[in-house]
C-alpha cells in the first residue's frame, strides 16, 4: 500500500505553548499519515500531554496551527476535534461512573435537545463496533462495575462510535496488566488495518518499539528526534529521550542488618481502593525493598498503612522489635518512619501554606519548634533555610507559598523534611513520578545514601526499571497480596510481569 501518495491526515505546524515562564511545547511540527502508528516518546514533563491537549482542544496553543484531513482545526474546541475525526483516550478515564456504558458512549452524540435519547440505535452500533474490533463490553453495564481494562475498551469505543479516523492514546498501558496490554496492541493493529491512524503516547521504550511505525521523541518541550521504528533501537531512543548520558545510580553493596519493620499477615479495609489481604513483609536495615505491581492492586493501601493513615484490621505490625498498638500518622512518625507520599500536591504539601510552614509540618509540635502551645517561628525559618540549602531547593524565599514551586523542588523539600531526622524506616511511594531526569537522579541518590546509613526502605513504583535499578529485594503486589521476595536479579522481567498479572507464584516458578 502506497502511503506516501496520500496527503497526511494530521499536520501540526509550529505548536508553541507556554505556562508562565515554562515553555511546555516549543515549535513542534509533525505529520501523521493514514494507517500509521506514531509513538510520541518522552519523559514525564516533556510536553506530550500538553501537546495532545492542544490537539484535542483542551488548551489553546500560543503559536502554530493544526490541520486535520487538509482542513484547519478550530483551536480550543474539543467538539471541533471530535467532528474532525480525532478521538482521544485519556490517561485518566473520562467516564461517568454513575452511568451505563451506553450512556457514556452516547453522551454528546445526539442533539442535546432531543426529547428522548435513542438507545436502540446506540446499542446496535455499539454491539456492531464491539464485534468488529474485538472490544467486548456490555452496553448496559454501569461503569462503576467495570474493570480497568473494560473501561479502556469503553474509551476506545467512544472514539470509534464517533467515527474517529485518528486515535490518540495517552499512556494507555499505565493501568494495564501485561496481558491486557497485549490485547490492547492487538486491537490497535486491527484499527490500523481498517485505515485509522494512531498516536501512541508513552515513556516505555519496549512498548514504543513493539507498536509503532515511527517514533517522535519529545524532550523539554522540543522535538528532539524522529526515527523510523525499524531503523532505530532502544538505546538510541533512550539517549534522545534523556538528552545526556545519565549514569545509572551506583549501588554499592551493603550488608543487610536487623529487621526494622515486620508486617505479619496484615489486612486492611477498602478505604484506599484495593485492600491488603494477609500481607507479610520484612524491611531490613541497609536494604531497599522494591514493590512492583500494576496500579490499583493494593499499593496505595500498603503505603497508607506504613504512613499511618490506614490501620490494620487483622495481623500485626512490629517496628524496631515492638508490636505497635494505636496507629496514626503521628504514631508512624514517632516510630521513626519517614514518608514520601505518592501525591505531593494533594497529600504531601499544603499548597497555600509557606515553605516554612510545610517543612515543619511533621514536627511542629516538637520542643524544637514549639513551646507551651506557641510556635517558634524563628527556629522554623532557620530549619527551612537549612533544608533549602542542604537539599538544593530552588525557591524565592521560605515565605513563598509552596504551590508555586516546581514538582522537583517540592519533592526535594518533602525529602528534606522526611530524611532530616535520620529515620530508620523510609516509605517512598512513587517518589520520582512526574519529575525530570535531574530530579529523578537526585531522589535516587538520596534513597541510596539513606540505605548506606542503615535505613530500611520500601520503594513503591509502577516503573519496573526504577525498581530493578535500586532494589536489593523485589516483591510484587497483585490483588492485595504480596509475592515472596526475590533477590536482585533472581527473577526475570517476564517472571515479574507474570506475578504482576496475578498469575500464581507456582506458575511463575514453573516457568523459570
Amino acid at each position, binding site marked *: 500500500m502506497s502511503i506516501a501518495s496520500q496527503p497526511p491526515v494530521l499536520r501540526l505546524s509550529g505548536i508553541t505553548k507556554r*505556562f*508562565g515562564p515554562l515553555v511546555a511545547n516549543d515549535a513542534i511540527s509533525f505529520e501523521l499519515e493514514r494507517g500509521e502508528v506514531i509513538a510520541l516518546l518522552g519523559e514525564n514533563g516533556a510536553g506530550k500531554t500538553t501537546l495532545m491537549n492542544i490537539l484535542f482542544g483542551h488548551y*489553546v496553543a500560543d503559536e502554530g496551527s493544526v490541520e486535520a484531513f487538509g482542513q484547519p482545526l478550530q483551536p*480550543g474546541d474539543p467538539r471541533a476535534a471530535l467532528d474532525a475525526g480525532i478521538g482521544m483516550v485519556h490517561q485518566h478515564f473520562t467516564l461517568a461512573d454513575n452511568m451505563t456504558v451506553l450512556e457514556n458512549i452516547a453522551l454528546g452524540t445526539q442533539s442535546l435537545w432531543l426529547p428522548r435519547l435513542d438507545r436502540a440505535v446506540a446499542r446496535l452500533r455499539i454491539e456492531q463496533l464491539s464485534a468488529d474490533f474485538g472490544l467486548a463490553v456490555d452496553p448496559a453495564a454501569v461503569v462503576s462495575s467495570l474493570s480497568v481494562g473494560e473501561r479502556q475498551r469503553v474509551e476506545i469505543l467512544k472514539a470509534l462510535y464517533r467515527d474517529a479516523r485518528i486515535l490518540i492514546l495517552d499512556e494507555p498501558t499505565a493501568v494495564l496488566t501485561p496481558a491486557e496490554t497485549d490485547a490492547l496492541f492487538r486491537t490497535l493493529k486491527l484499527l490500523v488495518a481498517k485505515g485509522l491512524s494512531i498516536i501512541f503516547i508513552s515513556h516505555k521504550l519496549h512498548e514504543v518499539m513493539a507498536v509503532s511505525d515511527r517514533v517522535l521523541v519529545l524532550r523539554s518541550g522540543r522535538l528532539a528526534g524522529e526515527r523510523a521504528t525499524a531503523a532505530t533501537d532502544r538505546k538510541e531512543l533512550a539517549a534522545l529521550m534523556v538528552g545526556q548520558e545519565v549514569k545509572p545510580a551506583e549501588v554499592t553493596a551493603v550488608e543487610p542488618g536487623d529487621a526494622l519493620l515486620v508486617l505479619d499477615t496484615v489486612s486492611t479495609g477498602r478505604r484506599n481502593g484495593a485492600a491488603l489481604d494477609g500481607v507479610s513483609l520484612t524491611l531490613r536495615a541497609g536494604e531497599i525493598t522494591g514493590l512492583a505491581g500494576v496500579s490499583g492492586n493494593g499499593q496505595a493501601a500498603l503505603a497508607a498503612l506504613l*504512613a*499511618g*493513615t490506614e490501620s490494620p484490621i487483622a495481623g500485626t505490625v512490629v517496628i524496631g522489635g515492638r508490636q505497635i498498638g494505636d496507629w*496514626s*500518622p*503521628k504514631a*508512624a*512518625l514517632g516510630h521513626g518512619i519517614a*514518608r514520601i*507520599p505518592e501525591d505531593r500536591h*494533594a*497529600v*504531601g*504539601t*499544603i*499548597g*497555600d*501554606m509557606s515553605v516554612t*510552614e510545610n517543612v515543619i*509540618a*511533621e514536627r*511542629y*509540635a516538637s520542643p524544637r519548634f*514549639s513551646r507551651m*502551645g*506557641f*510556635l517558634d*517561628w524563628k527556629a522554623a525559618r532557620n530549619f527551612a533555610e537549612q533544608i533549602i540549602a542542604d537539599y538544593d531547593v530552588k525557591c*524565592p524565599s521560605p515565605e*513563598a*507559598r509552596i*504551590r*508555586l514551586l516546581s514538582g522537583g523542588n517540592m519533592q526535594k523539600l518533602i525529602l528534606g523534611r522526611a530524611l532530616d531526622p535520620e529515620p530508620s524506616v523510609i516509605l517512598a511511594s512513587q517518589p520520582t513520578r512526574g519529575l525530570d531526569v535531574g530530579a529523578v537522579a537526585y531522589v535516587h541518590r538520596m534513597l541510596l545514601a539513606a540505605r548506606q546509613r542503615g535505613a530500611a526502605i520500601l520503594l513503591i513504583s509502577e516503573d519496573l526499571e526504577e525498581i530493578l535499578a535500586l532494589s536489593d529485594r523485589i516483591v510484587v503486589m497483585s490483588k492485595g497480596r504480596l509475592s515472596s521476595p526475590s533477590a536482585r536479579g533472581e527473577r526475570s522481567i517476564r517472571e515479574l510481569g507474570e506475578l504482576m498479572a496475578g498469575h500464581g507464584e507456582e506458575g511463575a516458578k514453573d516457568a523459570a
Partner: protein
Amino acid sequence: MRLEPKPAPSLGMTLLFPLAAIAATLLLTSLLVLAAGASPLSVFYLVAKGAAGSQFALLETLTRATPLIFTGLAVAVAFRAKLWNIGAEAQLYIGGVVTVVLGTGALPLPSVILIPVIMLAAMLAGGLLLLGPAILKTRFGVDEVVTTLLLNFIVLLFVSMLLEGVLKDPMGLGWPQSQKVIADAQLPRIIQGKRLHYGFVVAIVSAIVVWVIMKKTVLGYEMRAVGHNPEGARFVGIPVNRVLMKTALLSGGLAALAGFSEVSGLKGNLTLDLSPGYGYSGIVVAMLAMLNPLGVVVSAIFVAGIFVGADAMSRIAKVPSYIADVMVATSLLTMVVAILLTRFRVRWK
C-alpha cells in the same frame, strides 16, 4: 477561561482589593438608589454622615459594631479551618440565654467574678452548640452548613419558648422578654450617659487574642492547615477531627460572646429581637476582612456604619433602609471576587 495561580500580592495590593470591592458595591447599589428616585451621591453622603458625622453617630456605629466583631471573629475562625459555621445567630442567642440565666441573681458574686463567670459559661454553651454540627460532620459526613442553618431556627424557637415560659419576666406586661440582669452582671458604659459599653473593649481584646492564636500558636497553625488541605494535614499527623472540635468550641464561644455583650452591656434583658441578623452579617464581616482577626474589627465598624448610617439616611431620603442589607450582601460577593483576583490571574482562553 482559565485561572492561573499567581505569587502572593504585596501588602498594598492586599489592602487595595477590599477597597475595590467596596467601590464596586457602591457602584452597583447606586443603581438601586437611582431606581428609588434619589441621587446616589447625596444618599451615600447621608449614610456616611449618619454613620460618622457626629459623636453620637460614631458612638452608635461602634456600639452596633460590637456584636459584629464577635460574630465576625466566630466566622473568621471557623472559615479558616473550613468549618462552615452559618449558625452564629443561634450561638449568639444561646450566649444571651446563659447571660440572663446566670445574671438575674442566681449567682451572688461580686461583679469582677460574676462577669467573667458568665462570659466563660456563655462561651462554653455557644461552643457546645457548634460542637454538635462539627461532630455530625466528622462522624457522619453531614454538611454543617445545613445543620447550623437549621439550628438557627430551632434555637430561636427554643428561646421563644423560654421567654414565654421559665425565663418570662413576670413584670413584662405579657411581652415575651426576660427579667433584667442585676447591676453586678452588667458591663458598664464607657462614657456615662452614652450607649457604648465595655463589650466593645472585650471585643477588641478578643480580636487581638484570636489574632495571636491564629498567627503564633500551634492551634492556629493546625487550624490553617486543616482549612487549606485536610488530606495533607491528616498525612503529616495533625489530628484533623480534634482540631475541628477545638475550632467549633472557639468559634461558637466567640459568637456567644456577642449575645452576652448585647444583653449585659446594652439591652439588659433578653428578647426575641436581640439580634437583627448579626450572625449572618458576621459572615460578611469576616469575608471583608479576608478572615484576618484584626481586619474583622475594621470591617465590623464599616458594616455597622452602613446599617447605622442607612437608618439615619432613610429618615431623610425616601430610600428604604434595606439598602444597607443589599450593600452588605453585595460587598460579600464583590469581596470574594476580589480575593480571587489577588490569588489567580484570569486568562480568557
